[in-house]
């Protein structure tokens, strides 16, 4: 009896020490959690709550309703369009490059060079990138001048304009396709030579191999990367801001709200930001889900 009680006590104290150990373990991540709450979650969630409040702090859906005014809808549409175009364009181009360098039987140094270039290019963005494209394809840019001098062609007369939709898309592509190369390279590495051999051995043609084996294996990463590229373009601000003031993508609209360049209604600004968070959350969520799916197959 006494023995049993003692055991009970010992069990209790060891359970208590386990709880303490767990608390200590959790304490190790507290600084990090506090930091991200202070500088990420609190600010972000304040925008979300702010978008459901009027200027005096009362609950309202007016800001969300106001998002559906034509000028704001146009900005969202423009952002979505440019993100889709550059995600698909950059995605296809980046995939071709990654495929060429990994499965195309090129020398090893080409691959090293391409990954290094891609690392640089995917980070060479924002204001300097806009400058580079202005210096190259602006009204007096290098290529513009080259076409005019050597071929007598004024590309701006032919309808090209760096400062419109397609110009911005071309500029965005500069950091989009290298990102695709960097994401797709490991996925393509995972495509094992034996699968091609096994499918040939079972009688499949090259087309059938792609149709039934390679593409089904690759499609989650292909789609996932394209979605990531979409988000990448959707959140871009500096490039668009530095290149053009006439194309009002959502990020530029938000920037104007913050710096008070437009009729200032902070709560409408919060709603704009809220809309962005929603779209980004959906795309990043899809991306993560698709990545997990590939990882399960390719272990």
């Amino acid at each position: 009896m006494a023995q049993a009680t003692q055991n009970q006590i010992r069990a209790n104290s060891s359970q208590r020490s386990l709880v303490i150990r767990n608390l200590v373990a959790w304490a190790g991540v507290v600084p990090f959690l506090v930091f991200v709450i202070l500088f990420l979650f609190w600010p972000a969630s304040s925008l979300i709550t702010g978008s459901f409040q009027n200027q005096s702090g009362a609950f309202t859906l007016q800001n969300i309703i106001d998002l559906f005014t034509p000028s704001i809808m146009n900005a969202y549409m423009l952002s979505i369009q440019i993100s889709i175009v550059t995600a698909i364009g950059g995605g296809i181009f980046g995939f071709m490059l990654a495929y060429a360098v990994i499965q195309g039987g090129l020398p090893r140094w080409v691959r090293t060079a391409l990954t290094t270039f891609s690392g640089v290019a995917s980070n060479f963005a924002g204001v300097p990138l806009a400058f580079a494209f202005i210096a190259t394809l602006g009204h007096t840019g290098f290529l513009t001048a080259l076409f005019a001098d050597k071929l007598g062609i004024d590309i701006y007369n032919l309808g090209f304009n760096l400062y419109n939709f397609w110009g911005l898309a071309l500029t965005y592509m500069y950091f989009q396709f290298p990102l695709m190369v960097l994401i797709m390279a490991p996925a393509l590495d995972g495509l094992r030579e034996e699968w091609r051999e096994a499918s040939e051995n079972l009688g499949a043609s090259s087309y059938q191999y792609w149709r039934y084996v390679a593409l089904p294996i690759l499609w989650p990463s292909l789609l996932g990367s394209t979605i990531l590229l979409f988000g990448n373009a959707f959140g871009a601000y500096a490039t668009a801001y530095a290149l053009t003031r006439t194309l009002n993508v959502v990020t530029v609209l938000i920037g104007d709200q913050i710096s008070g360049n437009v009729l200032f209604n902070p709560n409408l600004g919060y709603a704009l930001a809220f809309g962005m968070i929603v779209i980004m959350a959906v795309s990043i969520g899809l991306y993560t889900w698709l990545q997990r799916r590939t990882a399960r197959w390719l272990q």
Partner: protein
Amino acid sequence: MAFLELTNIRKQFGQAVAVEDFNLKVDRGEFVSFLGPSGCGKTTTLRMIAGFEIPTVGRVAVDNVDITDKAPNQRNVGMVFQSYALFPNMTVAQNIGFGLRIRRESESAIKERVDEMLALIHLEQKGPSYPSQLSGGQQQRVALARALAIRPQVLLLDEPLSALDAKIRVSLRAEIRAIQRKLGITAIYVTHDQEEALSISDRIVVMSQGHMEQVGTPFEIYNFPQTAFVASFVGTLNTTTAEVVDSARGVLQIDGARLETAEKLDGRQKGDKVTIAIRPERFSFASEQKKANVVDCRIENITFLGSIVRIQVSIGSGKYYMDTFNNPFLELPKIGDKDQVTCSREAVLVLKS
């Protein structure tokens, strides 16, 4: 007439010769292993049969049809890969049915064949599973079923068991052999594991550095190795250099000890050096009556291996292994004991090189 014929095969990669002078005829339903260390050309030869490599010189024929230049997907040859190579995006059933789907067989025919194959490999319940949900041994059985589903003329197996655990390796190789016998299919099996080759094959091709060293039944390969390479690669073997004393009567001398061999020593002169080989299990302690091939020795080491006991003895300055069955009622000698060992005249093999 042989069913699978490889004639005068030679394969070069740039300057490097991977396979040379390869000639082999395999009968219908025969199980032949290519055995050798890595880089000996055995996998290259297998890949030439599958069509993934094309011989620089030579001819591959199946059932009297020359397939040397045929694309891999035009041949009817099933292959099992070392790394399974199951398609990760397809279920087990879809993997097994893939080759039939490519051949545009009807859905019902495919389903029937897949079920038949699943029963063959005892994985009836696993049809809807994905490969990543199976164990290594199960995956390799699926790969085998996939290769067999297309009713290939020849089944190729490229070190199919080397990625598996020792226990599964033994049980699966028995299963592979049983299935091959049941279907009567011609099979080529590549391995670097001599025990595997000996246990599974009708015939073995031992290869080294792109050459065929010896072709024969497991019995012949093990008991009568023709070259030093085969002797050393297959099983444990004592090899040493001996001096010819009397070539007509087959008398040799090692380290002062006299040994007789049953093999012919034609063309050898007294005083010539030859390489001889003796399997450890052919040695035994000399009994009273025995007179020939009795040699003085000293016990150096004793290793207990379970069913057998391996004893290392020294004869002169050379050291040799001797295997005896583990008999719990017999006393083992002690290290440092002096004793006498013997072997029959037939046990002393004279190697070609």
